[in-house]
């Protein structure tokens, strides 16, 4: 099975490519990239002139909710949402029920992902048993089962000794430790940023220092142990400054920011709209600007969605009672393009790197590039496409987004994973399709050598390589 992606502007940050090329895909892999490929008899040609072709996006911060909260999201619906968002690889956080702190849960997630067979799913294992922050989970077993990172996301590791041990013991596996930085004493009971909005509304505030204290701690522990730490969803100017300084000193730290934190500010909570309730909370304009500065200068390596689906009933409650989080898989790229690229804050190469090769490198997974020989995970983007966000049209079960009704510019129009078109889906009625079909007459034909879902997790770590 051969596919030619013809005439698109290819942006491949890992290889420094930004040119119009034809891309040849063979057997689910990138075969070659040439200025003008000669006609190939048995190849399907996808004409993408005027569009941008990038590696499939890698979203390293996703909550798929299954097992346990299938009413919020399932692995199947989450994967469909990912594909619709141009995402071909995602890392899913372990705060499911039961917690992903043992191989049964990891294997279950991988099995479900393989059944759906839409995008690569890389489970994140828990740092501590039950996310309780008391004792280490069996990290080796999790690694063997196929996790690609460790995190207690949603629950910070308050015990500094446990964090130290996790960093040290984690060296066995050469996988990233992802830290949700929040001092739970400083943040206790808070639901919005501590600032003007908390003062006016009487809602309890979470000060920026609650995050920064823990970012500082994790940087110090990374320096002491020499083990890398990845700071999830950085939200304050202070955290950006801390990470910048740490990187300058050569401390092994990486960081991510979410589209909502670099696009929205705390004032949205003045209306008590629970779709704006997220942890860490939306911050101030100066924090937002610092995040963009950090994304621009490389302090922040990654853009990730922190996709956190909830049910309508859960969100239609008093602000204090509604759960934290918003969905993001299907707006990840569009919000980033609208607020970073079209505002000229980030060039396309930098932006795409934050969404592809950087997270792939941190997670140590294949993809994130269009290098020949690699998986043909591809996102095709219409940079100028204007559309209004309609949460009702999401593939995700979660409709909780503060971007509902906003006009955005730029969207994924086709997603290929291992050479197979996974978005737009032929099973969805045309009314539901967000992306205009690039070549409507083209129907997907089943490809040979159906790729394995769940990520190529054999061979991914030093630990396994040694065995």
């Amino acid at each position, binding site marked *: 099975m051969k596919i030619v992606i013809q005439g698109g502007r290819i942006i491949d940050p890992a290889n420094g490519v930004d040119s119009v090329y034809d891309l040849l895909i063979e057997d689910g892999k990138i075969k070659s990239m040439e200025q003008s490929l000669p006609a190939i008899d048995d190849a399907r040609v996808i004409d993408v002139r005027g569009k941008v072709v990038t590696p499939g996006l890698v979203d390293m911060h996703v909550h798929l909710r299954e097992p346990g909260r299938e009413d919020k999201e399932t692995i199947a619906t989450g994967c469909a949402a990912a594909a619709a968002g141009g995402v071909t690889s995602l890392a899913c956080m372990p705060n499911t029920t039961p917690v992903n702190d043992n191989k049964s849960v990891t294997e279950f997630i991988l099995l479900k992902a393989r059944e759906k067979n839409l995008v690569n799913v890389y489970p994140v294992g828990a740092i501590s048993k039950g996310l309780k922050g008391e004792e280490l989970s069996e990290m080796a077993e999790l690694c063997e089962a196929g996790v690609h990172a460790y995190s207690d996301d949603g629950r910070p590791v308050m015990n500094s000794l446990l964090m130290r041990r996790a960093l040290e013991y984690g060296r066995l596996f050469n996988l990233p430790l992802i830290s949700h930085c929040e001092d739970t004493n400083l943040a206790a009971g808070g639901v919005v940023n501590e*600032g003007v909005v908390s*003062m006016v*509304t*009487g*809602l309890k*505030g979470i000060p920026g220092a609650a995050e920064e204290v823990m970012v500082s701690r994790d940087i110090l522990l990374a320096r002491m142990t020499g083990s890398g730490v990845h700071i999830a969803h950085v939200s304050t100017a202070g955290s950006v400054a801390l990470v910048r300084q740490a990187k300058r000193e050569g401390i092994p730290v990486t960081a991510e920011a979410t589209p909502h934190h670099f696009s929205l500010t705390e004032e949205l909570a003045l209306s008590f709209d629970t779709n704006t309730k997220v942890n860490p909370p939306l911050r101030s304009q100066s924090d937002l600007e610092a995040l963009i500065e950090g994304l621009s200068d490389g302090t922040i390596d990654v853009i990730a969605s922190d996709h956190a689906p909830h049910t309508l*009933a859960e969100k239609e*409650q*008093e602000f204090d009672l509604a759960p934290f989080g918003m969905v993001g898989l299907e707006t990840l790229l569009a919000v980033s393009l609208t607020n970073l690229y079209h505002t000229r804050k980030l060039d396309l190469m930098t932006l795409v790197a934050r969404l592809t090769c950087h997270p792939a490198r941190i997670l140590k997974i294949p993809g994130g590039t269009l290098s020949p020989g690699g998986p043909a995970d591809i996102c095709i983007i219409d940079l100028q496409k204007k559309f209004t966000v309609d949460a009702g049209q999401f593939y995700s079960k979660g409709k909780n987004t503060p971007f509902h009704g906003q006009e955005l510019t730029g969207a994924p129009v086709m997603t290929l994973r291992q050479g197979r078109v996974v978005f737009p889906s032929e099973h969805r009625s045309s009314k539901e399709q967000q992306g205009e079909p690039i070549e409507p007459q083209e129907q997907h034909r089943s490809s040979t050598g159906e790729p394995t879902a769940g990520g190529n997790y054999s061979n991914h770590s030093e630990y396994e390589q040694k065995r």
Partner: protein
Amino acid sequence: MFKRKDLLGIQELQKEEICFILDTAESFKEVLTRPIKKVPTLRGKTVINFFHEPSTRTRISFEIAGKRLSADTINISPSTSSLTKGESLKDMAQTLQALNPDIIVIRHSMPGAPHLLAQEAKFSVINAGDGAHEHPTQGLLDLLTIREHKGKIEGLQVAIVGDILHSRVARSDIFGLIKLGAKVRLVGPPTLIPPFIEKLGVTVEHRLEQGIEGCDVIMLLRIQLERQNKLFFPSIREYSRLYGLTLDKLARARLRHDVLIMHPGPINRGVEIDPQVADAPFSLILDQVTNGLAVRMALLYLILGGDES
């Protein structure tokens, strides 16, 4: 002059609306002095007092206000509410909607709950206190009381003393006083003054004597006894020593004899207010209660289309 469906906070009111409510309340005070205190204004209207948090004075005040205007008043308290059975506020709102009431007065421990109730509701909503957010009828009755005794509000120096952080009364008072041109200072320990509050146009003073110096009005806030041991202050004893208002401290601050003392109640005698101050002739604590009734009658009347009669 007052065309709103709901009263959710003082923050969103215009100065003219506030003055109109106060004027209307003043005219209702006369009704309260009649031998027969009931007027037929709201006959056939239904007012539900939905108090999801314990309250005596506000609930009774709303109940009497409704009854004086001949409305049918119904009280729902936490123990009798289906919210204790796990019903959500949204479902509760729909259930109440089906009973077609005219006004729901809501007290809730969480900020924004009245706003949630008012969304898409056909009935009117009056916020009777939502968490640490607003308590607009208390703010209005405080304004009425000050205006009554000082003849004006503009240019007055008002000190609000105590737990500003957790106080909905403080927020409503600040919004109202600033809109009407008073100068507001907040006095309390740094742990009980929310950061950024200066942005509302107030000043902050941490020492009581300096804070109340030259004031026309001192509004004391109830210190909730359960706040001690929560790291806000070491003990009630120490709080009282620093911030409890006594005749001595008033004298030391060289306050003019026409200073007014106010307190939204219930008071903790000997904690934030010395009994001698609470019972002094310049204490308006009971006037506030009476004015609360007038303000609530005015609001029920105005919201239920009082312009017609």
